[in-house]
């Protein structure tokens, strides 16, 4: 690891200032992804600004909104009473990610900011438009078993790696950020972006904008949620495909539904068309299958990841079945 300057800040103002006045500076929170990338030489920040002392760890309910500070730990959020009560899908998704050691270090904000695990991105000797724009995409015709089937571009077919974010996109969360120009709220589905011509940009944050926290509105899904993660081993591996499913049922009738999908795109993928189709229909496997087929329209395989074209709809159906069974 190349050495770096290190400072600590304890207020959001100081954190924003520190990046505004130093172009080579970068924030560090849990560090579980950043330290790894620095060891690999993928990222070499000249200065790290430690933001762990910022007062952004609180998890609390205010009216019909659950607020989670950006520095709340993944393990704390996944086991917090308020989260288990009002947003069990989020708890399930968090527990499906990483290991308990990493969840004890990783923050909510950091989870959103983690980089793709594409092997070409992770290896500075390989071409990668995300790491080094203009060098090409090694995965396009290379090892692409883990890669995207939706929303790709000829510049990048990497996938977003988080589980937590798949639940958050389904739950219509809002991201609260502050930067040199002020504050804003970003709807979760607008936080991450597709690669397009600028695969180096994972999200819509501007340089120097700090995530303060999240807001998740109440929903009628507490009884029927399921996060289904399909991976190469039964725990501690990134998703091949994952589905976050939430249902509001009256008898067998689907009153409301949310579907998020992971391991398939450069951003947490929301299955809006399948959701509209399902509303008002009966919760049966045949209906789920039809919705899954709708959701897969426009999907494209790149060779080694063609299996996701079949695994994807199967995972959607299974997640909806599991969510229906719960009561």
């Amino acid at each position, binding site marked *: 690891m190349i050495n770096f300057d*290190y400072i600590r800040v304890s207020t959001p103002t100081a954190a924003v200032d520190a990046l505004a006045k130093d172009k080579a500076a970068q924030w560090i929170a849990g560090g579980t992804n950043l330290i790894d990338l620095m060891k690999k030489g993928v990222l070499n920040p000249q200065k790290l600004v430690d933001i762990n002392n910022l007062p*952004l760890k609180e998890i609390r309910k205010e009216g019909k909104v659950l607020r989670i500070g950006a520095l709340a730990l993944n393990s704390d959020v996944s086991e917090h009473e308020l989260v288990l009560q009002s947003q069990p899908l989020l708890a399930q998704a968090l527990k499906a990610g990483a290991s308990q*050691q990493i969840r004890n*270090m990783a923050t909510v904000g950091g989870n959103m900011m983690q980089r793709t695990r594409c092997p070409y991105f992770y290896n500075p000797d390989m071409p990668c438009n995300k790491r080094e724009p203009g060098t090409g995409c090694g995965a396009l015709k290379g090892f692409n078993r883990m890669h995207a089937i*939706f929303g790709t571009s000829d510049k990048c077919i990497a996938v977003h790696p988080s589980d937590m974010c798949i639940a958050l996109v389904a739950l219509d969360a809002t991201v609260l950020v502050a930067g040199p120009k*002020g504050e*804003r709220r970003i709807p979760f589905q607008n936080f991450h972006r*597709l690669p397009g011509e600028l695969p180096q940009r994972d999200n819509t944050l501007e340089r120097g904008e700090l995530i303060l926290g999240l807001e998740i509105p109440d929903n009628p899904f507490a009884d029927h949620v399921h996060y289904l993660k399909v991976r190469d081993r039964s725990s*501690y591996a990134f998703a091949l495909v994952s589905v976050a499913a939430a249902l509001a049922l009256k008898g067998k009738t689907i009153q409301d539904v949310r579907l998020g999908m992971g391991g398939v795109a450069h951003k947490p993928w*929301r299955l809006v068309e399948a959701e509209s189709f399902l509303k008002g229909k009966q919760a049966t496997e045949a209906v789920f299958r039809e919705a899954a087929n709708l959701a897969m329209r426009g999907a494209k395989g790149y060779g080694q990841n063609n299996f996701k074209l079949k695994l994807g709809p199967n995972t959607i159906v299974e997640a909806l079945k599991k969510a229906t069974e719960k009561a």
Partner: protein
Amino acid sequence: MAKDNEINGQPEHSPDQGRRSFLKNSSLLSALALAPPYIVKAAGAEWDEKAARFFERVPLSIEVNGRSRTLSIEPRTTLLDLLREQLALTGTKKGCDHGQCGACTVHVDGKRVLSCLSLAVMQEGKKVTTIEGLAEGEKLHPLQEAFIKHDGFQCGYCTPGQIMSGVACIREGHAGSDDEVREYMSGNICRCGAYPNIVKAIRDVQKGGQKV
């Protein structure tokens, strides 16, 4: 698909999304319920802008296995390298050094973490427990005894990490069934494949109800 593209597309936020000066008026911050301002200020005076140039070593106060240490380190030193190279506590193992194997697991302020992905400088004022700090003198920790009893290892390289992780797993209340142990121990890889005996050892201690 049109709808999906709309919502999954590439939205750029509109520039007129009511921006106020963040520094003057931070309503989102107050929405997140900050600690009282005086606490923030007090902490700030101590921490802010305590910069370390990269050619400098920085001071670090840390408690390791009950002993307070005042050290001087490079900012890039990981907690793992600090323990092994500077404090000669070689019980904590370097396996992959990239957060994939769990061999470097230690407890920081009571929580199990990966020391290979922790910068030592970020552990200022914290209490670290390593495998060397688990026994009480000659008396092994119950889980150390259980690993011997159940033959929970072969080559032994992953064992310190397994035991530190296992102790935390029991303390967290995540050792209630074999399946739960397997799930919550998944961050610790054993290439000899001693998993069944590791599960037995952890379950044995958990069921014994001893204080761990």
